[in-house]
């Protein structure tokens, strides 16, 4: 078995974990003898940096958490010596077993910007078929029959959106790929753009053909410099290979794509705000209708689709609507990519068929909760979404079922929470986010969220008053029904779901001035167990305010009036004698 290729995961997550040093190490030792290739994200972010060693018989050895030293050993012993280092291989932990990879089929497997490698795996075949063998109308029908719905959050049927724009007589139309991915805790779109950018470009070009647009724009958020770079490289490569530009593949169809960088505003993910931002203005949403499909960029019909939505398109054209519709539930077809993060063992990127339950997602794919903690809830849909409690973990992942819980499917951020997460504090966190990101155009969103935040801040500080809960819920419904855009209309969701499912936690904060999860600082009380204390005084040294002194015996005590509840004493105590309640 000769080793023919070494692949190093060089997406943002891999680089952050130190993959560049690993890559350089392989290059240095192996020179040009073996192909050392940067690839995108495999999704196993919990094992980054990841290295795959491929042999001439097609066997694949996956190493986890590789650093420069281990890279050296792999290069010497495995690549040159032919003996795999069994101890360092990523174990088969069931992570991939229940996944279905459509959008992510190439992620982490190919050199991201290479047209050749993309084509080897069937890339640009869908584009060829669409523009050479199908009419625009047939393309739209195919997408409609597949049942594909928008993956950017709202789940609007993609084929229908395209048909609206196609009907418009305006000869100038646009395709916009929404890569603003503002949901904090989500990184699906980044991974696709970094790991398989051609797939998104191909999807956009097919969409352009379907609706009669000649021009596409990828709107990427400012925090994703690597994604921007890869997309630009991929555009240049596609143009060179004749998949973009004038008269693509000898047909009369021409299409160009350019990249626009966002400037850091969550609301710009909303489609009308996104248009304002591209046009060079403050990213403020406007009333709809007219919808962008009728009047969008500079007043022309514009189809705005999410990255993942577009990444599904080539697969559907290549394999047919029926093959796609075999996955999923009656109304939610295909797969959904999730960014699993938070208190979960396998945090990373996963793609599952719609209809899988949240429980299966967290435990079978995600590997469950670390440190033997209790599973409490998942936060799904980001700041517009909500918290689904463990008691509803049997909820299947499809648009309607998730909406019924009060959360939304959202774009794919999924944060797992355990018993040590305070739901009141989580609600406050999201509201704080929304309140800062509200563009300020409409009153309910601007002032309503501010008032709600004040109440929540009061509650986590232990200053909650009776009646606060009712006021919060009442305000929440008002903001939800009276706001101008999706930001305000969904902003109260995290509050409304937590007050519904975790009312007792709110009550504990308000009535008993107690935080059951032990998170809200102002409600904690630190003390030293005299039995467990060995009087080593490490805590007294560590205390930044000098609140710890000698007790009347061989132990230390904390002066409650002086304590600022920073928890430093608890961190340094070697005997676990500092209690918190």
């Amino acid at each position, binding site marked *: 078995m000769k080793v023919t290729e070494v692949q190093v995961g060089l997406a943002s*997550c891999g680089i952050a*974990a130190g993959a560049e040093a690993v890559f350089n190490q392989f290059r240095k030792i192996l020179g040009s003898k073996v192909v050392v290739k940067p690839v995108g994200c495999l999704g196993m*972010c919990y094992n980054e940096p990841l290295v795959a060693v491929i042999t001439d018989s097609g066997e694949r050895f996956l190493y986890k958490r590789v650093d420069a030293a281990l890279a050296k050993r792999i290069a010497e012993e495995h690549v040159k010596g032919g003996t795999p280092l069994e101890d360092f291989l990523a174990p088969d932990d069931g992570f991939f077993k229940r996944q279905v990879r459509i959008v992510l089929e190439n992620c982490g497997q190919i050199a991201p910007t290479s047209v050749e490698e993309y084509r080897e795996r069937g890339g640009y075949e869908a584009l060829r078929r669409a523009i050479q063998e199908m009419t625009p109308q047939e393309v739209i029908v195919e997408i409609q029959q597949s049942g594909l719905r928008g993956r950017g959050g709202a789940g609007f049927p993609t084929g229908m959106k395209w048909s609206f724009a196609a009907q418009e007589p305006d000869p100038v139309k646009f395709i916009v790929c929404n890569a603003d991915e503002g949901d*904090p805790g989500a*990184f699906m779109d980044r991974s696709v753009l970094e790991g398989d950018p051609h797939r998104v470009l191909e999807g956009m070009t097919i969409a352009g053909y379907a609706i009669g647009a000649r021009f596409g724009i990828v709107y990427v958020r400012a925090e994703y410099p690597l994604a921007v770079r890869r997309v630009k490289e991929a555009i240049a490569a596609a143009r060179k290979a004749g998949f973009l530009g004038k008269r693509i593949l000898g047909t009369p169809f021409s299409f160009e794509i350019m990249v626009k960088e966002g400037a850091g505003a969550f609301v710009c993910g909303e489609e009308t705000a996104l248009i304002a931002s591209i046009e060079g203005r*403050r990213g403020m949403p406007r009333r709809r209708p007219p919808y962008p499909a009728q009047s969008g960029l500079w007043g022309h019909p514009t189809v705005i689709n999410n990255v993942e939505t577009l990444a599904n398109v080539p697969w559907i054209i290549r394999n047919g609507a029926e093959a796609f519709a075999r996955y999923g539930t009656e109304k939610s077809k295909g797969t959904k990519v999730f960014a699993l993060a938070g208190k979960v063992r396998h945090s990373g990127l996963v793609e599952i068929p719609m209809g899988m339950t949240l429980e299966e997602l967290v435990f079978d794919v995600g590997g469950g909760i670390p440190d033997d903690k209790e599973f409490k809830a998942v936060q799904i849909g980001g700041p517009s979404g909500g918290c689904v409690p463990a008691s509803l973990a049997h909820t299947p992942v499809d648009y309607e079922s998730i909406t019924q819980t009060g959360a939304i499917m959202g774009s794919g951020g999924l944060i797992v929470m355990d018993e040590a997460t305070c739901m009141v504090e989580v609600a406050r966190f999201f509201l704080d*986010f929304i309140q800062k990101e509200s563009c300020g155009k409409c009153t309910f969103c601007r002032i309503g969220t501010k008032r709600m935040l004040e109440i929540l801040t009061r509650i986590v500080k232990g200053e909650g008053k009776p009646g606060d809960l009712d006021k919060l819920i009442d305000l929440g419904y008002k903001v939800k029904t009276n706001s101008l855009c999706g930001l305000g209309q969904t902003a109260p969701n995290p509050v409304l779901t937590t007050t519904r499912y975790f009312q007792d936690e709110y009550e504990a904060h308000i009535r008993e001035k107690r935080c059951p999860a032990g998170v809200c600082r102002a409600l904690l009380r630190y003390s030293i167990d005299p039995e467990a204390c060995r009087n080593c005084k490490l805590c007294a040294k560590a205390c930044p305010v000098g609140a710890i002194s000698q007790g009347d015996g061989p132990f230390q005590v904390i002066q409650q009036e002086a304590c600022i509840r920073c928890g430093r004493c608890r961190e340094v105590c070697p005997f676990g004698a500092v209690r918190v309640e």
Partner: protein
Amino acid sequence: MAKRALKAKKEKPQWKQILQKHPPVPESVIPLLQAFQERYGYIPPEAVRAVARYTRTPLSQVYGVATFYAQFRLRPRGKHLIRLCQGTACHVLGADAILNHLKERLGVEEGETTPDGLFTLEVVRCLGCCSLAPVMMVDEETYGRLTPRAVDKVLAEYRKGKT
């Protein structure tokens, strides 16, 4: 810090070159502000005016854009920019403690620059590396799985002159 402002002032006669990379239309306002910030680490007030004149957009509107987007900075920043993530995943995994630690070690609040001009501390929402939470970026480099001790190590590297 003052260095950047000085550089901006000195180069002002050559700003035309920056401006002319984009067409003189209102759509260029954001890319132009980004270009200035890329060059100087912030947008000098004079540049806001220059962009307005060049794109034939009212100054109020350009200023409105410059203050609307979180990315834009109207004051000079330190040599290194620390962006600490306070997104959901990082928050759940203790980014608050990291923020407090950073504030203490640097002696500054969010958005401020250390007196020696070495670091500016900013807080951002999600760097897209949630599985490595808590995460921060120093300039273009990302650091994950942070602990207070890991933060100290990173700061020390930059203090020693890492660029």
